[in-house]
Each structure stands twice: as C-alpha cells, then as structure tokens.
C-alpha cells in the first residue's frame, strides 16, 4: 500500500450535487410525493411543539439553554482540555483532528491496524460532514448505517433530507421497495411494523459482524470525560456496546461543563427535535469497559473535529456554535417544508445549514455560497431554535459575506441604486420613470412581463400597475 497520502479537500457540501441551487428547488417543487411527505412531517412537528410549550414548559427552558451554550462556547478551549484529560484518565484515547482529512485518516488507519472489515455506524452529522463513509469504503471497509432512516437512504443511495429524520421524504411503499432490493427477495412486509421488524433482523447481522462501532456525540461533558449519545431506536446502544472498538466523532463545539448543564440540554434536545420530553435511549459513555466487565468495547477513541469551527469563535458568526443539532429550524422553515433537505446539497440543510455550510467551506465556494439567499428571512427558524441562535440575522450577515459573480453584478446594481436613492430628487426621477413604465406596459391594470432583474417577478406573478389591484 502506498505511503504517499492523497490530499483530500472534500469540503462540506456534497460533491455529487448537480445544477444550481435554484434548479434543485425547482426539481423538488415538481415532486408531489415529496411535498406530501414534508407537509406531514412539518404539521406533526408543529403540533408537537405546541404540546411541548403548553404541557412541558418548553419556552421557559430556552433562556437557560441559550445561556449554557453561550457559556460553553466562551470557555471552549478550557472545557475541551478538561474533557480530553478525563477521557484519557478513564482509559480512552482522544484525537484532535484539524480537518476532515485528519479525522478520516486516523479512523481508517485504526481500522487497518486492527484488521477490521465491517463498521457499524450510528447517526452522526459530523461523520457526514467529513465524508467518513466515503473514506472508509475507499479503504476497503464495509460500512453499514444502522439508524433506520440512515440505512434507508444508504440503500437508496441518497442524501438525507433532515438532520433528525433523514428519510422523511420517503413513504412506506418507497421504503418497502428498497428493503426488497437489499434482501434480494419480494418477501418483505409492507406495513410499518413489519418493515421495522425486517430491518431489525437485517441490521442485527451487522452488529454481530462489526469490529468497529462509530457513533456521533450529542454532548461531551467535560467534568467527567463522558460522551452523551441521544437516540430513539437503540442502534447507538448496540453500536457502542457490541463491537470491540468504539470510535466517537464529535464536533469541538459540542462540549458542556458539567452535569447540571448536561441535564438541562439533554431535556431540551428531544423537546426541540422530536417534541418529546425524553428520547428513548441516552448513552453516557466514559472510556472503554472497566476491568472485570464482560461487555462493552475494549477500546474507546474520541475524535474531536475542528473543521473550521474554532475560527468562528470571536467572529460575527460565533452563535452558530451554540447549535445542538436538533433540526427544529428545518421543520419550521417554509422553504425547507416545500423543497426538503436534499435541495440544499449539504449534510446540513435548513436555516442552520444555509449558514454553516458556506462558513465551513469558504464564502466563495460554488457548492454553498447561494444557500443563505434561499430564504425569505421570515424568522420562523429563530422562533424555533431552542438555544436562541439569531438565525435570520446570521443569514443576512452570511449574505453580506458571500461572494459570487451574480453577487458582484447585484453589487454594481445596488451601487447605482444607492447613488440615485440617497437624494430626494434622483429618487423622485426614478419613481416617475418606473410609474410611467408600469403604465405603458400595463394591460387591464397588470404587467405580465418585466425585463432584466424584474423577469424573476413576472415568471410566476403579475405586477399590478394600478392599485388596488384589479380582479
């Protein structure tokens, strides 16, 4: 095997995405199944959120959640040092990876050194971000996503459409078809319970075979060196208990100071994400199995990823580091509700994804620079966020920061606009010109086609040339 390593700069946005962002939204809008599935998901989330507020005091918990996370980010270096020290004291290994390359290399080297062939994975946005599956498959490993939704989209060879519910855009019939193909038989149930039972058996085979289990980390608790993994299905329990080696991949900002803080965030997270006061399973893992224990991994490796996060501390975007990846902003977003997560072309979709993808990639990255513009700035996301991230404001800042030929063109237009509109006289002249043009082009009180930048308007709407608008 060659020792010269190929330099990889995978970026965050998916590399197999085609077309422009706008084209992908148009494709998504043409899909009626997608629209129905997203609407069901969105309505259900909305109803659940009302219950959380009314019966479980969700709103009252948000201020404290925000304060905790802000404090975590302020103290991030010290907390990470404490976390690291305590993980090591419990017999675990800690690796600080500067970027995707370093993280993937560590994990694939480990797998090679241990002679691993099969890797069982539970859901981790961080591993999607660093494209770990790709790196492991490239290294000859069989990687199996064990989270039901992630397994489904792995079979479909698709990208997830939501942080928490990745297969939310597929319905039961679509899932049954994928299972039939995977199992190589038509003898697959078509009811919901049957499909789940089928998946249970197929995935248990993988838990039995895997030498390495890879999980994400919802929170790292510095005071005891504990990683917290929150889930509903139980696959992370099996990923972190059955294989001999457990690798936990954590974004560096996911650290809290102590159990007081962890308790609060662990309560807020399921309320925000799935509108439940508790997730089914929370695993609190500190290092490998202890002397005399007969189940649990013999090795525990914590890979802490920077990937551009550290640079955000102290910047005007620092607040995005508070994010606990609940996915609420996605569900609340009218854009996401209509086009789904895949149109964003990044593992992080929705409002948070539209901000952090270009931040982690660079403001002129073609894969992500348009993302902050795919928003009406309606503010529903800011309302939904359990840790008070001012998402709409950050979207505007992200727009100011972005750089592209289209933006430079618009910049020239706004230069002219500002020259004309900073004086009453020239403003008045443009208004006279505009109103004249409307009157000339108007038919029955409507203009059906505007030229230049206005064509975006009249592609789908008429422009009233008289007010109130005629019927």
């Amino acid at each position, binding site marked *: 095997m060659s020792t010269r390593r190929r330099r990889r700069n995978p970026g965050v946005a998916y590399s197999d995405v085609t077309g422009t962002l706008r084209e992908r939204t148009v494709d998504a809008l043409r899909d009626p199944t997608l629209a129905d599935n997203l609407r069901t998901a969105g309505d259900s989330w909305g109803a659940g959120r009302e219950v959380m507020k009314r019966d479980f005091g969700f709103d009252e918990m948000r201020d404290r959640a925000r304060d905790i996370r802000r404090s975590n980010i302020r103290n991030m270096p010290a907390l990470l040092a404490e976390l690291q020290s305590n993980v090591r004291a419990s017999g675990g290994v800690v690796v600080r990876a500067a970027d995707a390359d370093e993280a993937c290399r560590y994990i694939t080297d480990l797998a090679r050194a241990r002679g691993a062939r099969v890797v069982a994975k539970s859901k981790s946005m961080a591993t999607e971000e660093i494209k770990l599956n790709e790196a492991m498959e490239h290294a000859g490993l069989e990687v199996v996503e064990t989270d039901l939704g992630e397994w489904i989209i792995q079979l479909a060879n698709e990208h997830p459409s939501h942080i928490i519910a990745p297969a939310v855009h597929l319905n039961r019939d679509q899932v049954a078809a994928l299972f039939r193909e995977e199992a190589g038989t038509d003898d697959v149930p078509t009811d919901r319970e049957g499909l789940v039972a089928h998946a249970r058996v197929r995935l248990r085979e993988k838990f039995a075979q895997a030498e390495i289990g890879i999980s994400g980390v919802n929170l790292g608790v510095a005071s005891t060196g504990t990683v917290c993994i929150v889930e509903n299905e139980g696959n992370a329990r099996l990923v972190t208990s059955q294989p001999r080696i457990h690798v936990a991949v954590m974004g560096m900002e996911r650290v809290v100071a102590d*159990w007081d803080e962890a308790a609060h965030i662990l309560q807020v997270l399921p309320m925000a994400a799935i509108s439940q006061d508790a997730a089914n399973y929370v695993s609190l893992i500190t290092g490998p*199995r202890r002397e005399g224990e007969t189940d649990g991994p013999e090795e525990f490796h914590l890979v802490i990823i920077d990937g551009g996060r550290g640079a955000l501390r102290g910047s005007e975007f620092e607040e995005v580091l508070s994010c606990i990846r609940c996915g609420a902003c996605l569900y609340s977003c009218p854009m996401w509700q209509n086009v789904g997560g895949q149109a964003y072309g990044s593992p992080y979709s929705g409002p948070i994804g539209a901000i952090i993808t270009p931040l982690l990639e660079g403001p002129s990255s073609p894969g992500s620079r348009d993302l902050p513009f795919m928003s009406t700035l309606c503010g529903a996301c800011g309302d939904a966020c359990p840790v008070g991230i001012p998402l709409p404001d950050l979207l505007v800042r992200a727009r100011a920061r972005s750089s592209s030929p289209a933006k430079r063109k618009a910049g020239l237009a706004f230069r002219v606009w500002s020259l004309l509109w900073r004086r009453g006289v020239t403003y008045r002249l443009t208004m006279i010109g505009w109103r004249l043009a409307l009157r000339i082009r108007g038919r029955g009180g409507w203009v059906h086609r505007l030229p230049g930048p206005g064509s975006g308007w009249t592609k789908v709407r008429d422009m009233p040339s008289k007010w109130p608008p005629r019927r």
Partner: protein
Amino acid sequence: MSTPVEQMVQSLARRKATVELARPGDAGRAAAVWMADQGIVRAVLADDPVVDAIRLESALRAAGIDVLRWPVAMGRREVLGLEGPEDVCGVTVPTLAVAERGTLVLEASVGHGRGLDVTNRHHVSLLMADRVVETLGEALARTFADGRPVPSAVSLVSGPSRSSDIEKISTLGAHGALTEHVVIITP
C-alpha cells in the same frame, strides 16, 4: 401532590411501558408471571442483590423459564437473538429512576451487562421504590457525584424502543427491546 412512585407509574404509562407494584416477597413471582404471559422462554438476569432478595431465579424456574445469570458465555449472535430462542428477556436493576420522565438509570458494572435491556426482545426492570427521584438533574448529579467512580456506561432508558423514520410516525421495536415491564418493589 403525588409521590415519586405514583409519578413514575404515570410517566411509565406515557412511555408505553407496563408497570406493577409488588412487595419484595411477591415481586419475584409477579415478574415470572408477567414473563410467562409474554411467552418468554429464557431470562438473562443481572448479577445483583435485588435479584436475589426477591428470589427471582427460583420463581422463573418454577414457571419453566430458562435462567441465565450475568455474565453469560455466549457469542455475539446469540446475545443479539440471531441464534437461539427469540423470546428472551433481559432483567435489569436500575440504580435510580426519574419520575417526571419515566426514565430508568442503568449502570454498567461487572455484574450488570450494559446491553441487558437492549439486546433482548424483552426487558424487565426491578426498581426499588426508594431509588425513584423526581428530576433528571437529580439523577445525573447523584450518578456522577464527586468521589464516586464514573461508570463506563450509564444508560437512560425511557420506554420501549421506537423509530419515527417511516412516515414520521412512531413505530416500536427498531433495535432495542419491544417490551418494557417495570416491577416497582415497595416496602
């Protein structure tokens, strides 16, 4: 104003777990009866004083249920239920429980496998009534108190396994146990 145990009973119902209260003298038989009703043929018990105190092992044998005690000498496939009988029950002993959420706190130790509640199809938990606290904060503060050795794994378990991935509607039994039955042992 309900007691922690009363609150725990309500919360467990909300989580779709089943629960019964029993005195120490009856708890072993109660658990055995529940398991026999489910068609359970084998039980894997935590190696814990509570299990002995309620004489669960003999009650299970009397009900014709095969008994194994942790640690078990079994390959991974059998642990996961891919081989051997399907209707196997893991029996756990929580260190604490959280009344407001219906959460069981299970600690991994030499006598208590970390996967007991989740590798088997069924899960019975023997909860001492005086181990029920009201809030998650309290449970975590006690579990990770200064001076106490930090367990390798603590599992917070809140109701039977469920997945919302198919049409975003809760579906039981994706990976963990399909059932959860809690026997609260009252004095």
